[in-house]
């Protein structure tokens, strides 16, 4: 039924609307002078005439609904304002930073999911044994540590003490020789951030994969698979994992939001020039337009990822597929 799909898309649109509206309202709800949020500390030294001029320029003298419409209109064309700190268009700055975040985000998600699933399957098939118990215990312990702190420790050990890997930035100060050399340098700088993100997100997915595989192992269709005389590997991949991984897929896609939040912290630790670090800089400098722009972008990005995951899930699970009228 297409109606169901429309309703779900409608829900996502609702969330988008809520995020954008919140973004609009926050500087206007915040205590103090709204101009502080738009042009920074200079707002204090303006005299009345200049104030009015600036207010008019930002449209703050118009009624609220009109401002809202202008705001939405601006968003549509990608106008997110001017950064207080950099003096450039916010959207331009954001666009520059996105690739770096993706560079560490995508490999982290892939590695973490694969590793967690493999370990979870291992633990589930040796349920109650030493391997299972120690994996669960170790995972719980690592999962309790703040990911950004793990990053700090990794820097202290690998970058400062052992000097194996660089500790901050994405590109070396002096460009390396040739494109391959440059790529290698970029890669070296991505190792620790990716490792930190993987360690941070491993625990949750591991526990879920383990529980999911345990459930699948006890199901009757697994008994049937054994009873048909299938090879153990075939039972594992074709029957156990095939159904056990569905919740893992859902969970990973649902956790985009928290993974992106983690990126904020980790990029800060490693001074990595992505969106996350941008948020930190904007907070530190109280660069409100930049912060708002980053918020809108991350919110929209996560919402879009969720929607995409939702839309692709039926491909893997026929039980939720719409059927054309038979």
């Amino acid at each position, binding site marked *: 039924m297409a109606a169901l799909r429309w309703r779900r898309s409608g829900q996502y649109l609702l969330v988008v609307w809520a995020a954008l509206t919140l973004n609009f309202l926050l500087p206007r709800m915040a205590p103090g002078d709204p101009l502080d949020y738009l042009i920074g500390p200079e707002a204090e030294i303006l005299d009345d005439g200049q104030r009015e001029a600036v207010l008019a320029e930002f449209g703050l003298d118009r009624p609220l609904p009109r401002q809202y419409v202008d705001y939405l209109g601006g968003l549509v064309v990608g106008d997110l304002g001017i950064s207080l700190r950099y003096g450039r268009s916010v959207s331009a700055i954001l666009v520059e930073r996105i690739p770096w975040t993706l560079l560490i985000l995508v490999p982290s998600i892939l590695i973490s999911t694969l590793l967690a699933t493999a370990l979870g399957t291992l633990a589930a098939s040796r349920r109650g044994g030493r391997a299972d118990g120690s994996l669960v215990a170790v995972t719980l312990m690592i999962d309790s540590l703040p990911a950004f702190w793990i990053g*700090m420790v990794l820097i202290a050990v690998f970058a400062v003490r052992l000097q194996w890997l660089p500790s901050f930035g994405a590109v070396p100060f002096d460009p390396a020789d040739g494109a391959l050399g440059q790529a290698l340098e970029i890669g070296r700088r991505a190792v620790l951030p990716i490792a930190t993100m993987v360690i941070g997100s491993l625990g949750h997915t591991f526990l879920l994969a383990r529980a999911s595989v345990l459930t699948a192992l006890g199901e009757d269709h697994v008994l049937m698979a*054994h009873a048909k*005389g299938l090879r153990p590997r075939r039972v594992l991949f074709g029957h156990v994992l*095939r159904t056990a991984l569905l919740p893992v897929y859902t969970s990973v896609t649902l956790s985009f*939001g928290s993974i*992106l*939040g983690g990126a904020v912290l980790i990029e800060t630790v490693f001074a990595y020039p992505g969106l996350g670090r941008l948020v930190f800089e904007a*907070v530190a400098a109280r660069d409100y337009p930049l912060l708002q722009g980053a918020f809108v972008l991350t*919110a929209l990005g996560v919402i879009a990822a969720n929607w995409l995951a939702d839309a692709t899930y039926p491909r893997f*699970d026929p039980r939720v597929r719409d059927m054309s009228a038979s």
Partner: protein
Amino acid sequence: MRRSEEGGRRLARAIRADGLGPIGRRFGKAGAAILTLLAGVAVFAPLLAPHSADALAGPPLLPPGDGFLLGTNDLGQDIFSRLVFGARTSLAIGVAVALLATTIGVVVGLSAGLLRGAWDQATMRVVDIVLTIPFLPLLIVLQVFLGGGPLSLVLILGSVLWARPARELRSQVLSVRERGHVQAAMAMGASSSHLLGRHVFPAVAPLVVPQVVRIARSAILLEASLSFLGLGDPTLTSWGTMLFHAQARSAYLTDAWLWWILPPGLAIGLAVLGVALLGYAAEEITRPRLTGSWVPAVPLTATGRQPHAVAAAFAGSVPLEVEDLEVRYGTGPAEVTAVQRVHLRVGRGEVVGLVGESGSGKTTVATASLGLVRQPGRMVGGVVRVGGRSLSTLEPGEVRAIRGRIIALVPQNAMNALNPVRPVIAQLMEAIQAHAAVPGAQAEARAASLLVSVGIAEDRHDAFPHEFSGGMRQRVLIAMALINDPQVLVADEPTTGLDETTASTVLELLDRLRVERGLGVLLVSHDLDVVMEVADRIAIMHRGRVVEEGAVSMLRDRARHPETRRLLGVGAVRPSEGRGGGSDRGGRSPLRSESRSGSFAEGGCVLDVEGLSKQFARRHGEPIVALRDATLHVGRSEIVGLLGRSGEGKTTLARIVIGLEAPDAGRLAFDGSDLTHTSHRRRRSLAAGMHLVFQDPYESLAEHMSVTEIVAEPLRIHRPFGRATHPDWIEEALRAVDLDGSFLDRRPHELSGGERQRVALARAIVLRPRLVIADEPASLLDAPLRAEILTLLADLRDDFGTSILYITHDEGSARRLCDRILVLSRGRISPAP
């Protein structure tokens, strides 16, 4: 009666541990210990810390020792003191947020789940929004624009973290609402506050604890994260701000990084770990544990041979022989011997029945015949011989080659025995190609023809299992078992849950195969009647042993073991004074009261149903028409039977009469009062006069209530005596169903199926209703219990003048009990032939 079910309960408990397992217990204790320690540190901080958090107590970057347990940071502050005072802030914020967010979450979740409607929609949209927008960026912007200080941190964290528990609690409430005991209370006319207080909240309350714990964990980590980003109060010392300062002042470039960076992070980790361990234990208590995995049983001896062509080796030998089999579950004090010294033999073309109650071990024997057990089970003794070869002398690969090829299984649970994500024909092809290198097209052709021969049309071959009905899935499983032409088939409850027509089709098919292919069949079931129709020999199992065995004719006439006799229903007389309540199998039973057969006695009907119509929309396809202009009447002190195939709308009719569903059209009158257009309140008060007995006694009783409370519930809802619940009425009701005072304080899980259904009947009659609607009250029970329930219903009519609408698919019991029989077919009601 209770004894025979004990085996089932013991077995189930061994497989699925109730409450805390050993890991959960250990985790719970460790978590509690950690949190107590940290709480102590936080509370006694001023006593433990040698300096205040901000004091410049010594020279900068001093290593540990000499009055500074962890040394000093770059400003000369004592790190240990800061750590101890930091505990206060971090933990206090965590606890405060957990309490705030849980309170909001519980209120929203409960109200949304119970009230439904617009409130539910609105709150769940808000939950969607809060949960979809990424947490940390949201918290950051909220704190930047609206915040300042620790109080705002608590409020902002609380305003975001309530959403997940609200959603989870709501779905718990929704599922509890659908549970039998809540439906039963609704059918009895309970008000919303009664439902909430006595049914929903007790069921949902335990789940709040893991929520609180989970929020505390998130809160501690999020506070640390926000403080690390500089959004905490910089004047307040928390573990997060310590790390913020460490990062900002480049701690790892100094020599002091070890004791400056490590302690706060470890402290955060310890707190979160304590909470997580406690949460693990809390979840284990409140959620059911996972059932054991299916594993190939470890062969008792192993040789070094390779699997080879097996078919030739099996020709001309006994298809299945089981000797002295012993299977145990669990270890130590919880060990249960599920199967003991079982001998079985299935010859070519022979159908051997294996009959016993649930828990007698018959399914274990069935799967062990293929060398499979469910963990934590293991085969500790005996021999299984398939085609003359003992499984324990074969390599695992050889045993695997036999499964599905020489011996095949039709498992018990057709609903779940097929892989849900692959088309059925692919699963049959898989069975073929597991044993022979058959090209795809050929395998597909063979699978297709076999599916057609069991009645699955070609256009459905690509469909997925969930698109088939239970009966069709059963047929697919049979086709899958037969596809490699096995010599012996182990069929575990192949007809349970199927209506009579489909069941006989299945049995006919098995019989045909037995004749055509010389297939040996081990037919496992709890229903002796069904098995006696097709089997040559039957073995009766009781508590893990075979207690009697022989040809069907011999068993029927000369059964010796009490268990066999019990299953046959021989001599099932009620222990109380002889009321002639035995199951008289042939001909008229004394249960029917002669003088009342025929039309409405004493004028006036208790129940009038006229022109009732009801249909249900389906997700894809045509709506299902349950009732189409259905009409029936039930007179005073009359027992009317309503027959029909399963899924034909009988339960829908019952639910409409009792008020759980609204009809699309038609009229309904109870004792002359029109029910179709009355207010809720009037409906509820009228509900005192009628009662619905549900089909499943395992669902319709609330597990957290005692028998007394269950039977007293109608008194509590309708309060015929004001607030008092008269204990003598309760005892009288229990006596009428033959339960004595020892049952008063028992809880449902201590009762067998038969006892539960009797409690349900006691609850039905405690208010002396004029009408009892019994929806398949005995179909899930065994033959002897069935006879008892029928006797009880007849007594109800005789003693109290209650009218009964007896709904069933079992014509035999209806003819024994009812004055009149009606048939519901295709939505319409007509008198039975």
